[in-house]
């Protein structure tokens, strides 16, 4: 984690019983009455308070259009916390938190509302001692970004005060191509300093993803074989069983590649393929991630190795579900993909010749995210061919969700008088070997924002580099129609053919 220079004589890095608490500060949520705030942000804030990880002077400040008082918002927040929190709801914890909940009513283009926000923050300096520290969470549609940021610039909200910090948190999408991403980055960086911008990719807040660092760099076992000499291929899958829900308008403009591939999957790829950082800090990790992303190459034959699909009606989990084109508010001639599978290469010495197969889709049989490292077969097998007929490739699978953990698949002798080798799986479940219930990704990420630890947040160079990878795909796909696949299947046949052409097949997650 980022080293925090502390002069507090009671703090000692060896004293790991004491949690790191952020400075007294305000978390300002724009769009505080929206879905994200209700389902994720407010419950995460409550969970942090319940775990005693919020500082004495913490304030939750909501900003939204509804004509609410502080109490109305506190009531809304209470209901959200009761419903969404991971830890048990306790009245006394809520009471402490409720006394630090504020609400400012206003629209984003309303100058007076932002002036009220400024004066509220000034009041909090004396009443809560927040000393100018504030994190602004933009839980608003991207189209509202410019307005909000301009307002913050006008009222000098983003400027660092004499003391204290100002940070801004933004959610994906970070643009829809490299040009729009650059525009957005320029806009945000113009108002805040680049180091004050936190881009949330909630996958990076998951324990298993962080465990990837531990797995790779804290063990001797895996790193020596983490290269093209031993690795045959890598498959990264993020499958969802749900459809597009109520996001029709947004989704039809975006599609699976921009929605998931560009951010989550490429981040997972970067963490899987990166070199060892010289230290475990935000800057050094970003350096290594950027190096990998720059080395990512697209296949020449995009027709074969970049497959996209769109689900048709079908059966999923015992229910009939509609096809994409029949979903509400989706044009009947939409060419938007709900499935994307691409073969990438990484042009480095470590990964030369190792294909990275990335796929994501909606209406697939189950919700699962995993990284599978598929190893080469043993160069020589001193057995009869029939003995090892059922032996596959060794695999190391990092299960990101659900059942967070690691699986190692290897061959083992079937008990009996004959020599017969078959694949077995050795399972490590996070929940069983450790300890505390796993914190929600948002809990961890909000805490990191307040602590100023940027390790788990992609920076704008990474975002732009990801678009450099995705843009040619989108260009290629623009003139094609997606393959069809039945809802409840593992994607279009073309995706299977893509691996089949390489003599491989998708792992069933």
């Amino acid at each position: 984690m980022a080293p925090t220079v502390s002069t507090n004589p009671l703090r000692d890095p060896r004293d790991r019983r004491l949690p790191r608490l952020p400075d007294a500060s305000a978390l300002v949520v724009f769009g505080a009455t929206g879905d994200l705030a209700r389902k994720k942000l407010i419950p995460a804030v409550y969970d942090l308070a319940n775990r005693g990880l919020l500082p004495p002077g913490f304030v939750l400040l909501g900003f939204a259009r509804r004509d609410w008082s502080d109490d109305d918002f506190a009531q809304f927040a209470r209901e959200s916390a009761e419903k969404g929190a991971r830890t048990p709801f306790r009245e006394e914890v809520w009471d402490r938190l409720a006394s630090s909940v504020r609400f400012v009513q206003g629209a984003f283009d309303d100058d007076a509302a932002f002036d009220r926000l400024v004066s509220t923050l000034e009041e909090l300096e004396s009443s809560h001692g927040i000393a100018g520290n504030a994190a602004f969470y933009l839980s608003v549609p991207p189209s509202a970004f410019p307005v909000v940021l301009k307002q913050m610039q006008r009222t000098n909200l983003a400027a660092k005060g004499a003391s204290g910090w100002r940070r801004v948190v933004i959610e994906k999408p970070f643009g829809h191509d490299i040009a729009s991403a650059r525009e957005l980055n320029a806009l945000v960086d113009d108002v805040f300093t680049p180091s004050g911008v936190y881009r949330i990719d909630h996958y990076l807040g998951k324990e298993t993803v962080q465990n990837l660092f531990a797995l790779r760099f804290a063990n001797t076992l895996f790193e020596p074989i983490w290269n093209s000499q031993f690795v045959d291929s890598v498959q990264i899958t993020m499958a969802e069983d749900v459809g597009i829900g109520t996001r029709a308008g947004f989704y039809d403009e975006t599609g699976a590649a921009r929605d998931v591939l560009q951010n989550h999957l490429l981040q997972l790829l970067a963490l899987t393929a990166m070199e060892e950082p010289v230290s475990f800090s935000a800057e050094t990790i970003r350096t290594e991630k950027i190096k990998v992303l720059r080395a990512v190459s697209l296949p020449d034959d995009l027709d074969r190795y970049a497959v996209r699909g769109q689900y048709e009606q079908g059966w999923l989990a015992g229910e009939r579900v509609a096809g994409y084109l029949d979903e509400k508010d989706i044009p009947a001639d939409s060419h938007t993909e709900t499935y994307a599978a691409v073969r990438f290469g990484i042009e480095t010495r470590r990964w030369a010749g190792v294909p990275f197969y990335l796929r994501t889709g909606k209406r697939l049989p189950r919700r699962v995210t995993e990284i599978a490292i598929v190893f080469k077969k043993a160069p020589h097998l001193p057995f009869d061919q029939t003995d090892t007929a059922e032996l596959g490739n060794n695999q190391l699978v990092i299960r990101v969700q659900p059942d967070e953990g690691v699986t190692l698949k290897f061959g083992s002798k079937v008990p009996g008088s004959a020599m017969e080798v078959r694949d077995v799986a050795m399972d490590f479940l996070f929940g069983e070997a450790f300890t505390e219930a796993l914190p929600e990704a948002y809990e961890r990420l909000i805490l990191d924002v307040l602590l100023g630890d940027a390790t788990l947040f992609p920076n704008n160079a990474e975002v732009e580099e990801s678009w450099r990878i995705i843009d040619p795909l989108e260009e290629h796909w623009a003139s094609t129609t997606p393959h069809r696949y039945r809802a409840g299947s593992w994607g279009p046949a073309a995706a299977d053919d893509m691996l089949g052409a390489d003599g491989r097949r998708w792992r069933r997650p």
Partner: protein
Amino acid sequence: MTTLWDTTGSEVVKALAAERRAAGALAFGLALTLVAVVDEKNVSEAEGAATLAASAHPCRLLIVVRRQIDAPHPRLDAEVSIGGRLGPGEAVVMRMSGRLALHAESVVLPLLAPDAPVVTWWHDEPPTRIAYDPLGVFADRRVTDVTAAADPLAALHQRATDFVPGDTDLAWTRLTPWRTLLAAAFDQLGDRPDTVVVQAGPANPSAQLFAGWLRNRLGVPVTVEESGRRPDITGVVVHLGGEQLAITRTDARSATISRSGFPDRVLPLAARGLGDLLAEELRRIDDDDVFAEALGTWSDLPDLGTRPPHREHVWHDPMNISTTVAGGPVSVPAGAPSAAADSGAPPVTLPGAPDAGSAGPSGAAPGLGSATGLGATRPTGATREHEADGR
């Protein structure tokens, strides 16, 4: 669940293996073994706490109940369960009576999870010296609770005298929420304070450790003031120039932070149950240097943290020898005739323990010779005679 009456250690090992097979998916990620040492009268409380801690830290839970050391025949009763009333993991409750109670390790050692750390926790009064209890000698971490002692402060001093890295005490664990709040309050302070006052009831070992920690970290005078009859810590006041920063417990679940020139803040400060305390101890398996420093500063015994972490078992028979409590040796009259108690084992002379000869004159305490029939069960020379001075 398997219940075994009047059984042997090997039967317990077999029963555990059978339960594991019956449980099906055998992918238990055993991170550690927790050995809980408890008196019969406190078993249910200790079981509850250990179950809670085990559900947070999946571990193999071994509960050892020693009773009736003077019973004429050694006897072992055991209950083996997986995913039963003692939480989701593997649990074995063992009741040992007679002379077997003094050799609990002979049953426990084969039950430890392979190559996983061992934490031993004494629910009741801590042993005078951990080296007296073989269940503490093989543990990587040892957790005591001096508040269970008749004289907690004397017991805390004894813990300091006997300390080696890897020891911790729940009196220290109870302090964590207080330390967290105070450290958070210090984040906003610029300078070192002039003096600190900890307010607590009489003879509260946590308050003493609090003072020891603050003295060690701040290098300023820290006093403990009695604040009423209740034993708990009720507050801490930091004087800094003309300013004052105070954290005061307001009720069972919260505290108020007040500082000159700032508005009061109320923060959660929940009193935690035994299970939560134990779970915090299991979170870290390495040595707690900060505890060593706090304990060392309080007891005026320097460099506790640099003592060699290794202990050798010291043979100690609670029935027939003098024992030591902090403050000086106290003679305990020999209980039931131990020769009779050992009737199961023929008297054997002392094995050639390398340091047997170095034991003081008390090594020849009456009855000890006959008790060393038990020494013969130990394969190495790790058993030493009891030294009457307790150090």
